[in-house]
C-alpha cells in the first residue's frame, strides 16, 4: 500500500514537472513572438493610437495598407517578386544540371569544385559587392532587373546545388542504371525519372533560395534603381519627415513576411537540410 502511494506521488511529481515545463516553453514562445505579433497589430492600428494600447487593437483599420499602396509598396512587392522569380529560376535550372552531374559522375576536380561552391556561402557579401557594383556600373546593369536577377542567381546557386545534390544522392543509382539498360537517354532519365522522384526536394530547395532572395538587402540596396527597388530597400528608406510612420511600415512588413510564414509550415520537413546545405540529413 505504501509502495503504491510513493509511486503515485512520483507520478504526480513527474506530471507537474511536465506541465510546468510546457508552461515555461509556451511562455518563452509567446514572449519571443511578440515582435512579430506587434507588426500585425501596428499594421491594423489607426495613426492616433500608435504609441498607446501597445499590444491590442481597439479600432481595426485598413488605412495603413491603403497608404502603403499609395506610397509605392505595390511596385516594390512586384519588384521583389520579379527578381525572386528570375533569380531562383535561373539558379534552379543551372543547379539541377550541375548537381546531377556532381552526384552521378566521377568528374575530375569534383571535390574541389563542390568545396569552392560551398565556401561561397561563407564569403562575406560585402567583399563581393564592391567589384560587382563597379562591374554592373560599367556594364550599365546597375538599376536593371537583369543585373539583380543575375546577382541573385549567383547568390542562390551554391545552396541549390548542394541541396539538390543531397536529394539526388538519396535516389539509388540502380534506378538510373535500370533506365539506362532499358535504352533511355540521359535527358530522359533526368527529366522523366530522377527529377520527378525528388520533386518535393526541388521545391524545398527553390523555396529556400526564394526566401534568401526575398529577404536579401545589401545587393538590393546597391544594385537596384529607383524603378527596380525591391521591398527590403523600400522598407529601409521609408522614414518620413517627422520620423517613422509605423503604421505604414508595419503594413508593408506584414505583406512582406506573410508568404514566408506560410512557407515555413510546409518547409519544416526540409529545414535541417536547408539550414546546413544538405550536409546533414535526416
Amino acid at each position, binding site marked *: 500500500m505504501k509502495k503504491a502511494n510513493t509511486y503515485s506521488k512520483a507520478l504526480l511529481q513527474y506530471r507537474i514537472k511536465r506541465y510546468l515545463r510546457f508552461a515555461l516553453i509556451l511562455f518563452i514562445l509567446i514572449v519571443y*513572438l511578440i515582435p512579430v505579433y506587434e507588426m500585425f497589430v501596428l499594421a491594423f492600428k489607426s495613426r492616433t493610437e500608435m504609441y498607446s494600447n501597445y499590444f491590442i487593437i481597439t479600432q481595426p483599420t485598413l488605412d495603413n495598407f491603403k497608404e502603403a499602396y499609395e506610397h509605392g509598396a505595390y511596385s516594390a512587392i512586384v519588384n521583389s517578386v520579379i527578381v525572386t522569380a528570375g533569380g531562383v529560376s535561373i539558379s534552379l535550372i543551372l543547379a539541377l544540371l550541375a548537381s546531377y552531374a556532381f552526384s552521378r559522375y566521377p568528374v575530375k576536380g569534383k571535390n574541389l569544385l563542390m568545396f569552392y561552391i560551398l565556401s561561397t556561402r561563407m564569403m562575406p557579401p560585402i567583399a563581393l559587392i564592391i567589384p560587382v557594383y563597379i562591374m554592373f556600373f560599367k556594364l550599365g546593369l546597375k538599376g536593371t532587373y537583369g543585373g539583380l536577377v543575375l546577382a541573385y542567381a549567383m547568390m542562390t546557386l551554391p545552396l541549390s546545388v548542394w541541396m539538390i545534390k543531397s536529394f539526388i544522392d538519396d535516389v539509388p543509382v540502380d534506378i538510373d542504371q535500370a533506365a539506362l539498360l532499358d535504352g533511355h537517354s540521359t535527358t530522359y532519365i533526368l527529366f522523366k525519372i530522377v527529377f520527378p522522384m525528388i520533386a518535393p526536394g526541388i521545391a524545398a530547395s527553390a523555396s529556400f533560395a526564394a526566401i534568401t532572395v526575398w529577404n536579401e538587402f545589401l545587393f538590393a540596396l546597391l544594385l537596384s534603381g529607383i524603378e527596380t527597388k525591391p521591398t527590403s530597400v523600400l522598407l529601409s528608406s521609408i522614414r518620413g519627415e517627422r520620423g517613422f510612420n509605423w503604421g505604414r511600415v508595419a503594413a508593408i512588413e506584414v505583406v512582406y513576411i506573410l508568404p514566408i510564414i506560410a512557407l515555413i509550415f510546409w518547409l519544416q520537413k526540409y529545414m535541417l537540410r536547408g539550414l546546413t546545405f544538405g550536409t546533414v540529413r535526416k
Partner: protein
Amino acid sequence: MEKELKYKRKNLKTKIEEWGEDLEDKPRVLEKITRVKKKEINPWFMILPAFLLLLILNIFPLIWSLGISFYRFSIIIKEIPRYVGGLNYINILTNPETWDRVIRTGIYVVYSISLQFGLSLLVTLLLFETFRGKRIIITLFMIPFMIAPVASALIFRYLLDENLGPVNSILNSLIGYKPLWFSTDISPLGIPYALLTVILVETWIWTPFVTFLLLAGMSAIPQDLVEQSRADGLKFRYKFRYVILPYIKPMMAIALIFRFMDSLKTFDSVYILTAGGPGSTTELISVYIYRVAFERWDFGSATAISYLVLVIVIFMTNVFMRYIIGVSSVEKG
C-alpha cells in the same frame, strides 16, 4: 554511332539476363554501363553553365577586387585609377580605426554567439521530452529566423523607441528606468547600449537557427536510452552530461561554425537599427567596409579591408569545413 550504342546496350541487357539476378561480375558490368553513359553526354556540359555563372560573378570579381586593392580608385571622381602598390594595405593596417572595428566585431561575435547558444540550449532542454504540439512550437519558433532581418530590425526600432516605445514604457512602470537603447551609454553588460541592442536583435533573429540544429542533434538520442535514464531516475546534470551532450555536440560544432561565419557578415540589421552609429559605436567590420566604399567612395581601401576579412574567412572555412565534413560522415557511418 547511335546504332552501335543501341546494340551495345542490348547486348549488355541480354548478358545481364543471362547471368541472372545476383551477378558476381557486377562491378565490371556497371563499369561498362558507365562507359556507355559517358558516350552520351559529358558531365562537364552539365556543370559548365553553373560554373560559368560563378566564374563571371564570383571568381572574376574576387580576383578583380584583389587588383583594385592596389589602386587608388573611385567611380565618383573622374580620375584615372592610380597604382599605389601596397599603400592601401599599409594604410589600413596602421590605421587605429580598422583595429577599433575589428575589436568591436570581436566583442559583438563573442557576446551574440554566447547569448544565442545559452538561450537555445535552454529551449532545447525544455523540449527534451516529446509532447503533443511540439512540432508546431518549433515551427512557430522558426519565424524570427526566416523573416527578413530588415523587417525585424525595423520593428525593434519601434519596440525599443527611447521615449514612446512599448519596452521602455513597460520598463518605466516596472522599475522606473528607461534605458537609452540607441545611445553610447554603458549598459550593465559593460558594452554601449547601442551595441547591446544590435546584439539582442541579432540574438533574437538567430537563436531559432541554433535551437533547430541542437534539436536535430537531440532527436538522434535513442529512445531506450531516454527511457532508461528516466527509469533510473537520473539526476538532471548527469542526464545532461552523459545522455544529451554526446548527441548534441556535433550539431553544436556545426551551429558554431555557421554562426561564427555569419556573425562576421552581419550587415542588414545593423544598417537598419543604427547604421553604425552613434558615432562608430556599432560599426561592425562589414558596416565599416560599406561606409568606406559607398560613403567615402574609397574603393581601394575598402577592397583591401574586405580582402583581409575574406582571407581570414576562407582560412577559417577551410579549417572548420574539414571538421564539419568529418563530423557529418561520422554521423552517417
